[in-house]
């Protein structure tokens, strides 16, 4: 049944490949579009390669893609990326989990204590409007150069989107559902457990999705501004050595990681909130 659900959802999803029920033209158009996307990449890489080799710009500043990929390949086979990458991902993951736990719990608490929420809300908005990443240097000063400071930075960066989205989701008041709850004689806890909490999930997951990307950014920036270890530190070292292909190679790794995180979150989101896209 759950599988049926997933397939039912993918039918609605424009990136999914041809479905039996879909008109043929649209699936062909999709294939053509995918082909054009790949073609664009090939053209851009080709132009970069040509420009770089022609000597119009310094090879130091714009290395040819071929050099970047050979650096990347060399790094991957020698294994130099794995430990720092794991370091950063671990910090990002732990910070994200802590933020999710805190954001969700505090969000739930504030949603059930409307008075407290009203008092705190201006500050929540203020913090959410501040680029929290900017306090990363301060956190390094307070917490030190170890992995702890990275985790704290990630937590701080991820916390507010999760909190605000949870609050927003739990604050939804559907009149019909409220009356239904009264008619059924539901207690406050039951209303929360059976109606408000599940109903808030699309919002909560939107927050988690944004935060998962923020977690990666948080970890890297913490490393840029002083936290030891990790792929961000490695990138910084490559930069200091003026090894531009090395910097680009790490950027490609980060891009792949970011895409993976994005896909994972999307899959998770679709699993939990399969009903929300269909509802409308």
């Amino acid at each position: 049944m759950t599988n049926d659900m997933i397939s039912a959802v993918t039918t609605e999803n424009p990136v999914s490949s041809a479905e039996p029920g879909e008109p043929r033209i649209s699936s062909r158009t999709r294939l053509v579009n995918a082909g054009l996307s790949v073609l664009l990449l090939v053209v851009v890489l080709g132009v970069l390669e040509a420009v770089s080799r022609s000597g119009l710009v310094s090879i130091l500043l714009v290395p040819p893609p071929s050099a970047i990929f050979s650096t990347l390949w060399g790094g991957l086979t020698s294994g130099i990326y794995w430990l720092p990458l794991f370091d950063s991902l671990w910090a990002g993951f732990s910070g994200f989990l802590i933020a999710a736990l805190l954001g969700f719990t505090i969000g739930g608490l504030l949603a059930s204590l409307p008075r407290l929420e009203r008092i705190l809300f201006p500050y929540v908005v203020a913090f959410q409007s501040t680029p929290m990443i900017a306090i990363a240097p301060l956190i390094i000063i307070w917490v030190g150069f170890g992995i702890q400071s990275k985790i704290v930075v990630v937590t701080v960066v991820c916390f507010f989107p999760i909190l605000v989205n949870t609050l927003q989701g739990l604050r939804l008041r559907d009149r019909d559902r409220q009356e239904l709850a009264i008619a059924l004689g539901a207690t406050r806890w039951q209303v929360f457990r059976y109606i408000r909490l599940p109903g808030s999930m699309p919002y909560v997951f939107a927050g988690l999705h944004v935060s998962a990307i923020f977690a990666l950014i948080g970890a890297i920036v913490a490393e840029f501004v002083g936290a030891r270890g990790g792929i961000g530190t490695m990138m910084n070292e490559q930069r200091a050595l003026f090894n531009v292909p090395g910097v680009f190679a790490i950027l490609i790794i980060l891009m792949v990681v970011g895409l993976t995180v994005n896909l994972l979150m999307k899959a998770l989101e679709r699993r939990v909130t399969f009903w929300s896209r269909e509802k409308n």
Partner: protein
Amino acid sequence: MKTNRPTDPILTVENLSKSYSGSTDPGALVLSSVNLSIAKSEFVSIIGPSGCGKTTLMKICAGLLSKSGGTVSFAGKAGTPPPSKMGVVFQSAALLPWRTVLANIMLPATIQHADMDKARQRARELLDMLNLKNIESKYPWELSGGMQQRVSIARSLVLEPEVLFMDEPFGALDAMTREKLNLDLQDIHTRTGATIMFVTHNISEAVFLSDRIVAMAARPGRIADIIDVDLGRPRTQDSYVDEDFREIETRVRNSFDRAAALA
């Protein structure tokens, strides 16, 4: 008025009033001195122009809205029916999209810690009764509007309530679906013996379903007329063209028009 006083009322409304502003100006009253008794197993429709307070009356009787004055009593005791003894069907199906059809129908049992096995068995019976076969593991958004409303009716009946409150449940459905659901509802009424308070603005629907029709007038919302529907049961699709049916329909329409003219 004899028809207003059944011998064995299960639900009684006395001198009920409702105002939102708190003012005592009679024109500002949503409901003004409403008196109504409904007998056990009786099907009563509340009909009237928009703004006459018919939904408000129903919601006060169901305990969903507070009253400003008067009393509501259920089974001889002051107060609205306890949730375990009533079911409510709303204008919208109000199903939870993350729950399957069966889980939606079971929601009242879950909330009231009822015997789940018994409720599940009852839910399946209701699915059968309401022509909802093979959809118990579907989700509400996979169903048509008519089917969603059937599911919400099944939900309201899963704990075998004594009283069923229905607030224009078929208002958003097309005429064909509506007629089918009216037949099914009549069937359910006969089989369960539940007392039903049914709010509608559709006259032939009210005549088709009811034992009595309460016609309301607006500003202030009040009962303008109560019409007995002495038509045999079961009523069928042919009943709509019966002479007796048409006659009652005309009487209700006249009350309705008078009520509308007064407002």
